[in-house]
């Protein structure tokens, strides 16, 4: 069969068609047990910013993830020393998990590495992460949905553990 690129379709068009056709399957959506209406998963922490960051790191290590780095949100964008220390990102990864996800669809890498953000605003400390289930909807791929569900559960557990 002749490639549809040869018929004049762009790769983007083809990807969109594949996604559209997959929708005919009638799901894996909707998720019944999950909240897909929120862009983020967020909890308030009863601890100080420093304690919360430490708790998040402990929780990440406890789940066999590797800490990659901790940095302020605006690091690299502002002069050294002028970063906002009240907004801290903790990047982490499980390379086995990452390798599995990339093997399903290399485009999933744009949601990586895993990230939890700790923010102190108006005296209140919050822990947040992007909701992976919203990302899953971009692909409509059952295997990726399972990965995103797993990631959603991991994020939820990490946030709960760090704020307990």
């Amino acid at each position: 069969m002749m490639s549809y690129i040869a018929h004049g379709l762009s790769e983007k068009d083809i990807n969109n068609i594949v996604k559209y056709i997959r929708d005919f399957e009638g799901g894996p959506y909707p998720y019944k047990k999950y909240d897909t209406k929120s862009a983020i998963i967020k909890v308030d922490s009863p601890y100080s910013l420093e304690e919360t960051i430490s708790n998040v790191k402990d929780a990440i290590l406890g789940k066999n993830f590797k800490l990659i780095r901790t940095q302020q949100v605006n690091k690299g964008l502002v002069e050294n020393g002028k970063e906002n220390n009240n907004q801290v990102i903790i990047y982490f990864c499980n390379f086995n998990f990452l390798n599995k996800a990339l093997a399903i669809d290399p485009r999933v890498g744009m949601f990586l590495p895993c990230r939890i953000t700790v923010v102190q605003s108006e005296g209140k400390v919050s822990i947040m992460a992007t909701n992976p289930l919203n990302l899953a909807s971009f692909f409509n791929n059952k295997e990726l949905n399972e990965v995103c569900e797993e990631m959603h559960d991991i994020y939820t557990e990490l946030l709960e553990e760090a704020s307990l």
Partner: protein
Amino acid sequence: MRTTKVTMNIFLFLLLTSTAFTSFAEDLIMMRIKQTFPETMVNLQSAIKQTGYKISRVQRVDIGLTKSGFKTDKYRVVFYGKADEVNQLSIKHPDIISFLPLKISIFAENNETIILTTNPMQLKRFFKDIPDGTFSRWYKDINTIFDLTNTLD
């Protein structure tokens, strides 16, 4: 054989012109660049700067994977933003922080390179208190960055 081909073409035409298709056609913004990874990486970083943004970091996903024993082609994530914008948005709308700084993934596929990111317009429905102009400007800038990356020598 010819009938099948014509039918398929009609089917694809209908798909491409349907309203339903358009509504979720751009969850992801992706472009295949017919250049090698190193060339595209240089052009991408240059395009980001030319569009008025600063690169805050390049995450070398492939290095981490390789060190952990997994075989992978080149895969990086480029983080970028504008300091003032990130500062203002993150203070006024703390929930958007999880999506900042902005990022573009870049990975090699044989002798070509793919760049992609999520469509920032997808965030609009979650952050109704952020002026629409922010997301549409990001969208426009991403398209400019992608086009520049594709055309720079």
